[in-house]
């Protein structure tokens, strides 16, 4: 052993050195670091669990929102449909009323026209009568007139009247 350099004091020194080193490292390195690792593990696990909870809550909330949104959309659709139907009805009513009014106006106009025409006819007849009287008076005052001329005059007169 001497030739190999192994000597009891040096050997014991090395053993003591190792044991002290182990105790120091155990107390000041392994324990704090392993504790820290353990703490970090639990903290991360907590954080992950929390995140999962939050995620689920968010998902639930989103689903609720979507449901509400869907309901709102349907409601709006219905409102639009109702309004459209309403407006269509109103439009039809207005058109119907307008048509009716137009028909009334037309009928009144036709009646007025008819009346005017008849009125004109009556006036015309009166004028014709008067005119024929005037003509007659003129002819009679003018002297003799034969049958032929008479007839011609009347004829001419009538055609004038017709043309007028």
């Amino acid at each position, binding site marked *: 052993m001497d030739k*190999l350099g192994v000597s009891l*004091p040096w050997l014991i020194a*090395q053993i003591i050195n*190792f044991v002290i*080193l*182990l105790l120091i*490292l155990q107390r*000041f390195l392994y324990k704090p670091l392993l504790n*820290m690792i353990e703490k970090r593990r639990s903290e991360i696990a907590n954080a992950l669990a929390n995140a999962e909870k939050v995620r689920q809550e968010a998902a639930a909330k989103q689903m609720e929102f979507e449901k509400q949104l869907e309901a709102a959309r349907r409601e709006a659709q219905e409102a639009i449909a109702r309004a459209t139907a309403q407006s269509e009805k109103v439009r039809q009513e207005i058109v119907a009323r307008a048509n009716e009014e137009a028909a009334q106006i037309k009928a009144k106009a036709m009646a007025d026209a008819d009346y005017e025409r008849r009125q004109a006819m009556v006036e015309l007849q009166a004028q014709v009568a008067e005119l024929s009287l005037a003509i007659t008076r003129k002819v009679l005052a003018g002297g003799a007139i034969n049958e032929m001329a008479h007839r011609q005059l009347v004829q001419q007169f009538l055609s004038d009247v017709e043309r007028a």
Partner: protein
Amino acid sequence: MNRQRIIWLVIFLVGAAALKVLLPFPQEQLHPSVVPEPVMLIGGFVVTNSLLITLVVDLLLILTVIGATRRLSLVPGGLQNAMEITLEAIMRLVRQTVSGDEKRIRWFFPFVITIFLFLVPANLLGLMPGFGPLGILHYDRPDQHTPQGVTPLLDLPASSVFQVPPELRAVAQQEEAKTSSEAEFVPLFRAPSSDLNTTLALALVSWVMTQFFGFRHLGVLGYLRKYFVFDKLRRGIGGLFSGKTKGVGGMLVFGVIDFAVGILELISEFSKVISFTFRLFGNIFAGEVVLLVMAFLFPLLPLPFYGLETLVGVIQAFIFAILTLVFMTGATTPAHGAEEHH
């Protein structure tokens, strides 16, 4: 770690390697000594160069502890992160080996990790510049001259702790030193792992704790039953006396075999100390000798071996730790025969 730090680290490593490779070394170093050389005498206790470096290793580890735990935080950085990675890797290994048994993890882990953390610097420090060429010259006679290739860095006063009397110095070379015309050169630094005292001390700690855990976990009888296997032999002899001859022959034969195997295991248990001691010492010491010889042959030749020795140093530290773990686990696992009876 930022880029600048990495650059500094690389510069440091390359510089260290270059210094180591280029520094002149004493011719005397070509006869490397297995025996650690005494370099100091403190209060009657002879401190060898390897003990000195063991203290440096301790200091490095304590500085690491301070650096890693000074600002413990949940978000680790730098040294804390590096140490956590190491601890967790070893912890995972221990946990796998004992298959999650919390009690044995608590028992084994401090030994496995401390052996690893101690041996990595202990193995690698020998590669640092200054290991080998830096040393002390002892002029025991006035006519002795300075050996070739050695530059004395400083004159040591006669009363300094570095003045070790010749009778306490390298025992094997004492005769030679007395007659030599050259002053004796003693390297100041030596990797702890290239000293058999260190490796033997670690092997003894590992082995004693292995036996202790074996007894503690299995009980005195339970542990001894691993090495003294009488089960089948006793049943065979019992069968012989009770007259039930069926299968007794086989029982006796296997009983004898089991007993012999148990004794062999007992012997191999003791041989573990020797294999532990010399595996580590041999690897590290031989590595240093290889570097020395290569440096002697050609200035840049040691570089590839330098990388190789770095690898060997880390691997040997790991092997020592893992073998300790495996032996401890083996010692705390009940014998096969005992398991069947449970």
